[in-house]
């Protein structure tokens, strides 16, 4: 059964040094607030897993939280490089980091295999390309029926998955809509999980019967953090802060400007700072729900 906690309590009780941690959300609903809490609590030696590491992992890596990155596309979308990742990988600053690199198809399939309780994922992929030469976790199996050679990668089974969702209800069920990415698979594949949400409602009310719902018994800790996906976005709440993504390029290029930014915006702040950003990006849609209730009980 899920438990309602503050974000600090959720991270404190769920994420340990040395854990493999997947913070998922495919462009949409990236759990920035939870990532910042992991930075504030100074977790170390994490294996960070994410299809698109995005700015959140650039920040965690730059603050020395991780010694391994598992990914399939490591850039600032539409902008350029992740400079903190590159500094760690190329120069070992602030700590050296190793990589395990896949394609999107491989990682998506590997999360699904994790959710399905299978040891590995099988798919048609990596044909003619070099990644299998540099990643020994990319192997091949032969179809027992047709003889076709297919790609195989180990299932992803994170110690902890962290996601941001739109809403939780009082019973601790979690709702996601819009670009749903691999969040459901990542939570079901994990041993433990943290879900931050925009709001907690008494009841989900009218919805499509096909809305993505994670029932409370599949979820670990829930923390209400309005705006917790900023500068990513939350469907129906606030838009992606593309200006932030562009600004990050200059902030993150230089170690000192990065550290100064992290001190001001992460170390000296708490999760409540996210609501301000989100309402700025929200175009009046932010926290409309009349049923909005206080999470911290």
């Amino acid at each position, binding site marked *: 059964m899920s438990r309602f906690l503050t974000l600090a309590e959720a991270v404190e009780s769920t994420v340990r040094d040395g854990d493999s941690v997947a913070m998922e959300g*495919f462009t949409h609903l990236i759990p920035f607030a939870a990532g910042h809490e992991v930075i504030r609590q100074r977790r170390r030696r994490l294996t960070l897993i994410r*299809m698109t590491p995005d700015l959140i992992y650039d920040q965690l890596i730059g603050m020395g939280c991780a010694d391994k990155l598992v990914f399939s596309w490591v850039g600032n979308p539409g902008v350029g490089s992740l400079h903190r990742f590159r500094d760690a990988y190329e120069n070992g600053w602030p700590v050296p980091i190793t990589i395990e690199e896949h394609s999107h198809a491989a990682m998506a399939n590997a999360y699904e295999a994790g959710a399905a309780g299978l040891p590995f994922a099988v798919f*048609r992929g990596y044909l*003619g390309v070099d990644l299998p030469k540099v990643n020994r976790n990319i192997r091949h199996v032969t179809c027992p029926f047709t003889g*076709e050679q297919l790609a195989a990668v180990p299932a992803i089974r994170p110690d902890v998955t962290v996601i941001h969702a739109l809403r939780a209800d009082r019973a601790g069920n979690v709702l996601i809509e819009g670009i749903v*990415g*691999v969040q459901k698979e990542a939570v079901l594949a994990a041993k433990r999980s943290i879900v931050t949400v925009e709001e907690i409602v008494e009841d989900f009310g009218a919805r499509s019967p096909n809305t*993505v719902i994670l029932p409370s018994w599949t979820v670990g800790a829930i923390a209400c953090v309005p705006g917790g996906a900023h500068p990513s976005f939350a469907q129906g709440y606030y838009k992606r802060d593309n200006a932030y993504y562009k600004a990050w390029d200059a902030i993150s290029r230089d170690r000192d400007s990065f550290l100064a930014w992290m001190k001001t915006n992460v170390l000296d702040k708490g999760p409540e700072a996210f609501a301000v950003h989100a309402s700025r990006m929200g175009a009046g849609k932010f926290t409309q729900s009349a049923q909005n209730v206080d999470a911290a009980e």
Partner: protein
Amino acid sequence: MADASTEMMTIAAARALRNTDICFVGIGMPSAACNLARLTHAPDITLIYESGTIATKPDVLPLSIGDGELCDTALTTVPVVEMFRYWLQGGRFTVGFLGGAQIDRFANLNTTVVGPYAKPKTRLPGGGGAPEISSACGEIFIIMRQAPRSFVDKLDFVTSFGHGEGGDQRARMGIKTKGPTKLVTDLAIFEPDPMTKEMSVTSIHPGVTREQIEANTGWPVRYAANVAATPTPTDQELTVLRELHARTESRL
């Protein structure tokens, strides 16, 4: 505003798309070309981004493959696992539209590293969806600006497979799709030679010389038997493209 050669490239790439195409759209220049096609000669084209957004009709160009605009204007949005398993691997795309950092004469692409993999000179973002897009889509269109350091004799890393070492290598590997059939640059259009599969110039953009193409290509350039002149952009193409960029800028 984009310069004239970038506009020409985007417009030439858009023209390659058909109204009936089901297109897997890469971010950046491919996305601009695909949406220009949709807003001009191919209003019924189906554009799909790897975020799971199917038949999306964005009013502005997204910065990422998962901007809210794509989801808001999509026919439906499916999970990413489903996108790669049922839709891409399932063979439901007629064309995939890619960009790259490095390309060779057989249209193999590198978006992973410059230099050795373990100790790169430049670490690039990596493959994302491209390794499987390049083998699962019916054919591949590529849009890339030409320069000696990007049009190289030998790739540092094969991120996605084009025609390999040429000839019938795709078929011998059991890949049933056509691979790269069009490479649109800021100078010309390349298509694979029917036998060798080497990318050969089939059309030269207005005002561009063969010398310019050769100076910006890291291998000896081959030309098709009949090289066409790329038609100059029409007023409509230029207007729609400029309006699309202006709308995109105004939303930032």
